[in-house]
């Protein structure tokens, strides 16, 4: 009981505090690849602290929706995080079919973020919003096929169950299928968190951006919320991939948490590597890549059923 409580608290703390670390790792990796020193790993924390101090410049065009975007982005990402098991224990919130909630929470966040972008009435941000909501639907089936495959492997209907169970029984039974799903989910992760090859988080050519261009008009604390929210989203989706990929070692929580942490770090570095070695895709190519991801995880599902 007490153990559960502790784990839950730990889960919440990790979920709340660790995410900004990931972009730092990613950027550091890219810097290394580029032969630069690069910003410190904790850079995002500094930025958030600074942004919290600033005032806000509000466009006269905007309404409450402009505020709702960043807030909803953060809240939904955090709530989604409560569904994904991190340590040995089940996630704080876990019930049959909670993966649907997981996906739809992210969608809720997307709804308000995109709406906030449109609230400014700027052509650029409208463009960004359009791309955001146009690409992510194509990623949804990939996500769900993965869930279905894992569910059929593990025989469980809840995220905690199917992510853990996938390992215990699945990898030996039908590893190939789960591998496909893993690949698909990695692509989804890159797409959802607006990473290369879908989007370049630190380009400044508005016409080519997706996520960044949506938040051009958010400043100060609001921008902080946006950055924090996207980092949480990265963390949560990453956790999904890591938990599917890694086992839960026996012998107490500590090794489990350590393994998980290592996995997340590895994932971040992996993203960094991808971003360093690949170029952005042309926007018209993006749907094709997403459809490919869908096919991959669909194939995985088929393999599982056989």
């Amino acid at each position, binding site marked *: 009981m007490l153990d559960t409580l502790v784990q839950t608290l730990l889960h919440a703390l990790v979920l709340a505090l660790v995410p900004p670390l990931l972009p730092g790792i990613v950027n550091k990796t890219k810097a290394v690849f580029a032969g630069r020193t690069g910003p410190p790993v904790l850079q995002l924390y500094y930025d958030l602290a600074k942004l919290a101090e600033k005032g806000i410049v509000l466009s*006269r065009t905007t309404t409450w929706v402009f505020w709702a975007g960043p807030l909803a982005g953060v809240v939904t990402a955090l709530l989604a995080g409560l569904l994904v098991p991190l340590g040995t224990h089940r996630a704080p919130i876990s019930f049959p079919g909670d993966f649907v909630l997981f996906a739809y929470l992210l969608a809720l966040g997307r709804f308000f973020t995109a709406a906030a972008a449109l609230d400014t009435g700027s052509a650029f941000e409208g463009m960004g919003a*359009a791309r955001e909501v146009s690409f992510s639907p194509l990623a949804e089936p990939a996500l769900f096929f993965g869930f279905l495959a894992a569910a059929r492997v593990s025989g469980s209907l809840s995220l905690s169950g199917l992510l853990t169970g996938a390992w215990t029984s699945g990898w030996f039974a039908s590893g190939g299928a789960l591998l496909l799903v893993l690949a698909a989910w990695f692509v989804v992760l890159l797409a959802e968190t607006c990473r290369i090859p879908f989007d370049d988080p630190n380009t400044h050519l508005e016409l080519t951006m997706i996520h960044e261009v949506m938040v051009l008009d958010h400043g100060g604390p609001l921008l902080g919320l946006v950055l924090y929210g996207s980092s949480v989203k990265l963390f949560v989706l990453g956790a999904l991939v890591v938990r599917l990929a890694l086992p839960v070692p026996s012998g107490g929580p500590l090794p489990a948490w350590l393994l998980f942490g290592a996995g997340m770090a590895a994932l971040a570095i992996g993203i960094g590597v991808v971003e360093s070695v690949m170029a952005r895709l042309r926007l018209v190519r993006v*749907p094709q890549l997403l459809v490919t991801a869908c096919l991959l995880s669909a194939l995985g599902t088929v393999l599982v059923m056989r």
Partner: protein
Amino acid sequence: MSAGLAAPALSLPLLLALVSAALWSVAGLLGGGLEPRRSGPRLFAALAVGAGTVGLVGAGAAFVAGGRAVPSGAGLVGLDALSALFLVPISLTGGAVALFGLGSWHDGERTGPGRRLRLALGLTVAALVLVVLARHALVFLVAWEVMALGAFFLVGTEEDRPGTRRAAWIYLASAHLAFLALAGLFALLRATAGSFRLEPLAAGIAATPAGTLLFWLALVGFGLKAGLFPLHVWLPPAHAAAPSHVSALLSGVVIKIGIYGLVRVLSLVPDPPAWWGGTVLAVGAVSALTGVLSALGQHDLKRLLAYHSVENVGIIALGVGLGTLGRTRGETAWVLLGLSGGLLHVVNHGLFKPLLFLSAGNVVHATGTREIDRLGGLARRMPGTALAFSAGAVAICGLPPLNGFVSEWLVYLGLVSTVLGRRVPDAALAALAAAALALVGGLAVACFVKAFGAVFLGEARTDDGREARDGGALLLAPMAILGAACLLVGLGPALLAGPLGRAVSVAAGPSAAALGPLAAVAPLRTLGAVAWAIAGSLALAAFLGLRARSGFLRDLRRPAGDGDAAASTPAVTWDCGYAAPTPRMQYTSSSFAATLVRTFRGVLFPRHHRPDLTGGAVPEPGRLFPAPATFSSHVPDAVLDVVLEPAFAGVARVAARLRAIQSGRAQTYLLYVFVTLVVLLLTL
């Protein structure tokens, strides 16, 4: 109905329901027919609200009574949980719509249409109530046709406007086709079962050719009314042409009657073959996809909403199909989850779609246009409407914590338990359906971000909305009611477990006894708790945002311009420092959807009207600038405009050629007589 009233054994709920029907018709006749000069509208609204309340009470009483009531009233009418479940949206939406109508449709210059409108409205809703109560084929058919014809007059209310007559005709044609199919269906039932009573059929009929014909007649007849792809052709034009509160009634209730009929008839069949459920499921998935895709391409706010009705009916059919498949396979979990998901979605869509149509109607009422690309920035002029629309949008996208999520979640759950099942074909079908549903969800979000953003956010693109205002309480109250209902269902799904379970056990037909409680397979309590958590944390965030920058609430009501320097610095949109942006530079809804439309051009057949660059567009020698040129694009209906119109034109041509046989010469006619004689003599 008279027989129903005359009958001795009337349970209280049934009596209430019949009274509500009677009240509706009275409302129509008094409020519309013989109008006491100006008080007609008010009288109508009052009676209608009364009728709605009585109907709700009756439904509630039916649920309390256990909802397995045997048909009473001389066996002509009856009220069981299934009927009661459909009675809820009918009564609620009916009342709300009547109120809204009072707000928007009693201005002097439209009295003539107004009276006809109220008359048709009252009779239509009365007929709707009667349809769900009917336990006898003839009662069903009569009520059905009254409902269909009433809706025809409702759609044609503003027949002086361009396009309305065509829309009404398309509706009438499909309605009558549906009616013919149903007449055939019940004639077949009569012939096979030997009675016009809606009673369970003998086992084994489903396997016969008659059974197959029965299924197809039901699917076509009810599918036409429900607007399942590819039978949805009447929906978009009708919903666009009708007065907005009528559109709300159409999509909120009328098309659901198609679902009701399908569920009711399927419940009569003890042993539906697997391919029945599979077909319904597949049709549902296809409708959901095509519906949302076509919606993406629309520029007309109400057409867009209409296509979403196709989508949601598809989701409902998906659930129903899954439930039917479960009945065949004897999988209670599929039955429970599929049917309850479908039926709950019926109620939910009956709440948020009217909400959307009423707010859209408010916009149309205030701006006088349905063209999304002529609107913009209405959130500041019509905050109430904007709030209502956003709530409806969140709900219809199936996003937590509102009601749409609950029903879609149930359907997902059913699909996943099917995926876990033993039979690979079923599992594969379910997996495809689930993925399709996921895609649909994402696209719906895209579509409603577009609609909400383009209409309510940013700057006004034209002068249409300059003077727009929220309108009076009569316009806002119905939306408030519906929105509250959406939130209620979202937060307390467990409350519905009981009634829903009863309705499902009726819909599951003879095999119902085996079904366990719904809560056993679907943790609705947990879901409710989570919904509270989500709602709570969102509220908390809003509150914090409020505290942190006490500009939040003010921004809600703030007219454009004056800001609060202390809280936040007002400025123009930075827009990367772009100089002097004009409202017309905003991303339009068309460009917003362009990527997806291009991606799915294979099914959407988008049409582009490009300027002719070889002609006037290039400047002649003497002139410096090219002549002004226009570019426009639209997405036609994939069935009506792309398939049916050409097909009908072809048929008409053939018919015209055939008519040459009526040449006008007596000699030729006598020759026909002679030839007939000879041919018949040859048969000797």
